[in-house]
């Protein structure tokens, strides 16, 4: 086994472990039996556990895995942030804002994003330790591109929520 395959496998295990963890958390918090709309996190979970790791395993399809994994992190962040705002703790002390919102869940979700980023970057930039990072920050597949998408998706979601009632 090469170091590349070994590291890739380790990262894929991390990705699957986090996805399974998230899937079980969702099942515990909102079971499908209670509300049919809860099928959404279940489908998203299956996507994260099965489809995304398969896409990441293929060099030809890795871009799709990378984009889907990141978009899942963004969608999860937007929805959980919305939920946290709708159920804002009272009184809103700093401790309550950290511990009684979904901030912890959002941070765990971003762990999954960074694992995907590492898998993607290792595939494309290789394992050369001296190689410089190139490219514009705001273009795909760099962090700026993700920030732009996080901001834009949040904005469109907010507009949909506020304008179309």
């Amino acid at each position, binding site marked *: 086994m090469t170091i590349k395959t070994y590291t890739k496998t380790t990262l894929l295990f991390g990705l699957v472990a986090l996805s399974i963890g998230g899937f079980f958390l969702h099942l515990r918090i909102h079971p499908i039996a209670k509300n049919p709309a809860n099928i959404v996190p279940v489908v998203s979970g299956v996507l994260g556990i099965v489809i995304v790791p398969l896409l990441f395993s293929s060099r030809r399809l890795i*871009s799709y895995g990378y984009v889907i994994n990141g978009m899942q992190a963004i*969608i999860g962040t937007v*929805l959980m942030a*919305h*939920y946290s705002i*709708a*159920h804002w703790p009272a009184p809103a002390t700093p401790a309550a804002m950290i511990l009684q919102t979904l901030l912890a869940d959002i941070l765990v979700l971003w762990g999954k994003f960074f694992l995907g980023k590492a898998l993607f970057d290792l595939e494309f930039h290789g394992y050369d330790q001296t190689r410089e990072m190139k490219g514009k920050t705001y273009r*795909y597949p760099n962090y700026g591109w993700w920030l732009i998408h996080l901001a834009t*998706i949040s904005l*469109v*979601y*907010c*507009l*949909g*929520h*506020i304008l*179309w*009632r």
Partner: protein
Amino acid sequence: MNQFRLFTPYWWILHVVAVVFFFWLGHIVHF
């Protein structure tokens, strides 16, 4: 990576669908 070039027909279709989807998502979700 042709599919991720800017302002191609693929790019426009993807982005129009995405904007409509996220606008609709904001509309249907009520916590």
